[in-house]
């Protein structure tokens, strides 16, 4: 595009806009730099480049909703009374007037009905908590599916996993604070979980509750954990997460001019700062509107906690749903060994599984790196289809999570769909095992066929949707070559090699130590790579185009090109 650049607005000129009041700004900067010496660090970072993609916003949502949690949480502490002391309620909410309840519950009602904006802040706090955890999960999936967790970013992956875990615990402690019937039911279940712990179970319960359940200490103790301990840890981990992000520089999608060695995007000041800062107001605003319009956790309808009462369909917040689901569908296994009771029915679903899930998540990058033996840094993202096995692993985990989560609502499903709760339970008992396997196989196949489709596009162009009729009367679809940019972007990925243990065997053919492990590694590497469709070589592209020119003007239908297709491609990298 030829353009008369004399008309171009100032903002895109190479030179900095002249500062209107150089003296003042300069004086402040000088004062600060002579004391803090920030000049050097700022010089590098003020114009630090951040690449742009919608999926990079997911982590930002998590960050900003955490800020909203801090702000609204501090507001709540001004009125909330973390005490289980019993009082009679005399506030404005008529149906509960005269009812005995804890000060925690009474102050929550006070916040909801007698403090202007109090209900809004409570609801915003709770909505922000849900968005915080949901966005962390989606952000984590983005990082996994695109391979952004690979070297050098493994530690940030670990920090992210810990943040997700801490956020969930923080949410549970917050949910317990109002001391209403639902939260008390949750705490009662937590007491049961603790008592099921081997050896120390009843001690843990008596220590945490300050004696027998429910005691008078649990709310003040959870309060300290909720407003001080866990937020402090989360804050520290977020700070480390951000520092590492800046140090590593953000990953980027491959494309023309975007390589492993550079990062292309907008500078921190002004564009990225404006976009991220503006986005904070958007997240905050959306949460405020939700807090205004969408009722959440109406504790006044549940009433105060009473150990003799429970409501049907009682459910924890959604992020606690999946262990709760496993807890519902596990058979009632319990054994007594040497006179000691082991409650497998509680131990496995709520004490073992969440920890196993956390460990599996933390280990994913390290397992993959071991299988591939890849010790290089990766800054270009991968499309999920180009790592079919990895993608399938996450989809399998998601399927397990989803089915467990559905099990957490088995009573609601039974009522809504008029099914028998027994049948749903028996079905899910099988499904949590079989579902992930099926999901793994389907996802992997699907990714590979998408890869094949990409290869087809590179070799024979894209389908135009124009149907051609040849002089002999045969019909074919006209294909046109894709643009250079598109072709480059599709091929900006590596060729993969399957690990083979032979390379670890010494010259006399004697197996190196640890060979059994190596054989496992080679099998996993085969699973990971051998069926993948590799990008065509220059010669293959040359040949396909040559072929096409012969049949010009109409490019032949894709079918004629099957000989060079990925089906028999895998032979070459064994």
């Amino acid at each position: 595009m030829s353009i008369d650049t004399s008309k171009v607005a100032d903002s895109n000129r190479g030179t900095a806009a002249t500062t209107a009041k150089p003296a003042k700004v300069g004086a402040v900067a000088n004062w600060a730099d002579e004391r803090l010496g920030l000049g050097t660090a700022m010089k590098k970072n003020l114009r630090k480049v951040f690449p742009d993609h919608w999926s990079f916003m997911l982590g930002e949502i998590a960050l900003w909703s955490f800020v909203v949690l801090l702000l609204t949480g501090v507001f709540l502490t001004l009125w909330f009374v973390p005490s289980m002391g019993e009082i009679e309620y005399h506030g404005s909410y008529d149906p509960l007037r005269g009812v005995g309840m804890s000060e925690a519950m009474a102050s929550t009602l006070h916040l909801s009905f007698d403090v202007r904006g109090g209900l809004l802040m409570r609801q915003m706090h709770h909505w922000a908590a849900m968005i915080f955890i949901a966005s962390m999960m989606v952000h984590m999936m983005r990082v996994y599916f695109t391979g952004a967790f690979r070297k050098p970013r493994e530690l940030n992956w670990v920090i992210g996993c810990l943040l997700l875990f801490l956020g969930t615990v923080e949410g549970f402690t917050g949910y317990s604070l109002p001391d209403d019937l639902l939260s008390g039911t949750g705490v009662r279940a937590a007491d049961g979980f603790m008592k099921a712990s081997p050896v120390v179970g009843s001690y843990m319960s008596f220590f945490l509750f300050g004696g027998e359940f429910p005691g008078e200490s649990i709310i003040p103790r959870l309060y300290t954990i909720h407003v001080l301990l866990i937020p402090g840890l989360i804050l520290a981990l977020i700070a480390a997460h951000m520092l590492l992000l800046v140090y590593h520089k953000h990953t980027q999608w491959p494309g023309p001019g975007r390589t492993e060695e550079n990062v292309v995007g907008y500078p921190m000041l002004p564009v990225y700062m404006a976009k991220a800062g503006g986005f904070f107001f958007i997240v905050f605003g959306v949460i405020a509107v939700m807090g205004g319009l969408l009722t959440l956790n109406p504790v006044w309808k549940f009433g105060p906690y009473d150990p003799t009462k429970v409501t049907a369909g009682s459910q924890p917040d959604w992020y606690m749903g999946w262990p709760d689901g496993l807890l519902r569908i596990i058979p009632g296994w319990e054994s007594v060994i040497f006179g000691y009771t082991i409650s497998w029915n509680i131990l496995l679903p709520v004490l073992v599984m969440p920890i196993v899930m956390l460990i599996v998540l933390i280990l994913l990058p390290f397992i993959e790196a071991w299988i591939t033996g890849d010790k290089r840094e990766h800054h270009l993202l991968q499309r999920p289809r180009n790592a079919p096995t990895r993608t399938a692993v996450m989809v399998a985990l998601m399927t397990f999570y989803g089915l467990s989560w559905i099990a957490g609502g088995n009573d609601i499903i039974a009522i809504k769909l008029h099914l028998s709760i027994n049948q749903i339970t028996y079905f899910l008992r099988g499904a949590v095992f079989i579902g992930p396997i099926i999901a793994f196989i389907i996802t992997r196949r699907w990714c590979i066929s998408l890869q094949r489709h990409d290869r087809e596009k590179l070799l024979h162009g894209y389908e135009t949707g124009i149907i051609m009729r040849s002089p002999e009367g045969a019909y074919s679809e006209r294909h046109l070559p894709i643009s250079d940019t598109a072709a480059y972007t599709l091929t900006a990925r590596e060729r993969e090699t399957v690990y083979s243990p032979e390379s670890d065997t010494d010259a006399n053919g004697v197996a190196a130590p640890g060979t059994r492990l190596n054989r496992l590694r080679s099998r996993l590497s085969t699973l990971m790579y051998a069926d993948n469709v590799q990008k065509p070589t220059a010669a293959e592209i040359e040949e396909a185009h040559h072929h096409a020119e012969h049949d010009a003007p109409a490019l032949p239908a894709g079918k004629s090109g099957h000989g060079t297709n990925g089906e028999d491609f895998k032979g070459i990298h064994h």
Partner: protein
Amino acid sequence: MSDHPTGDHLPATVEEPIANPGLPAHTWRPTDVDPKAERRAERQVASLFGASAVFTVLFAVSYFTFEVGENWDTFMGLGASNVFLGLTLGLALLCIGAGIIQWARKLMADEELVEYRHPARSSDEDREGTLQALSAGLEESGIGRRPLIRNSLLGAVGLLGVPAIVLLRDLGPLPQDTANAATGGGLRHTLWGVRPNVRVVRDVVGTPIRPSDLIIGDLVNAVPDGLFDLHGRELQVAKSKGPVIVVKMEPREIKSGGNWAVEGILAFSKICTHVGCPISLYERTTHHVLCPCHQSTFDLADSAKVVFGPAHRPLPQLPLGVDEEGFLVATSDFTEPVGPSFWERER
């Protein structure tokens, strides 16, 4: 991959078979070349900021206009105050956000910059230097040469974990120290055992029950007599262990557990043996009770055995009798702990 120009820390092979065409040329936006479009965008952004200010004022107005408390449900079934505060605050924030982002997209420079990456690894010289500094420091401390000092220090510091744990001891009493049959304290006692023949009284109202008050198919929530004299902590603890469900069925329908029944009336702990929710849903034709928390189902006609769900143990049964005035009583405490299982339960 060692042939890569920047060393072997990066993958090398991404730029074949198609050569990298390089960054596309920058294209100017309408706001870059058309002063009118530029001014329009400027006005848009400023109006968004202006709108935000209006909403903030409206927020303050709503705060002082709408009462909370009595008339809280005056708008869309929600508190008017809450709806207006939420909407005005939300819109004030959203307008600022939209304005800033519009400013960035339309008016700030949109030329992409390129920055080079560097390996996370430090240079060989730096690593060498660090190792030297480290070994010099360690050498000068003599930590390697004086294992006695090193080991005694490690031992002493490690032992400091003890105060950290010991200090937590007073968080609560030990389970066995709270055990007290006379007050119903601990994991193995309830109010039913504090004296002989504790009356079974109705939940909430506290009135005693005569067997003739119940008809076949009835279910009554009941608690031990004396529960309502308690307060605060004691009341809550007693409520979490004492409640029972009292049911009456045809004596011939009772498959087991009948020797603790009075005229077809049976009493079972209301506290689920799974993780402790109060059981609530009773189906009188099958005599099944269902726990609403995780759907464990117990057959009250058969000693409350588990017929479905994750619970393992039957609900503990309370042995019933009738006192001289003809009211239902417990002839003893439960003969096993109520509620969820725990490690030393069978001991």
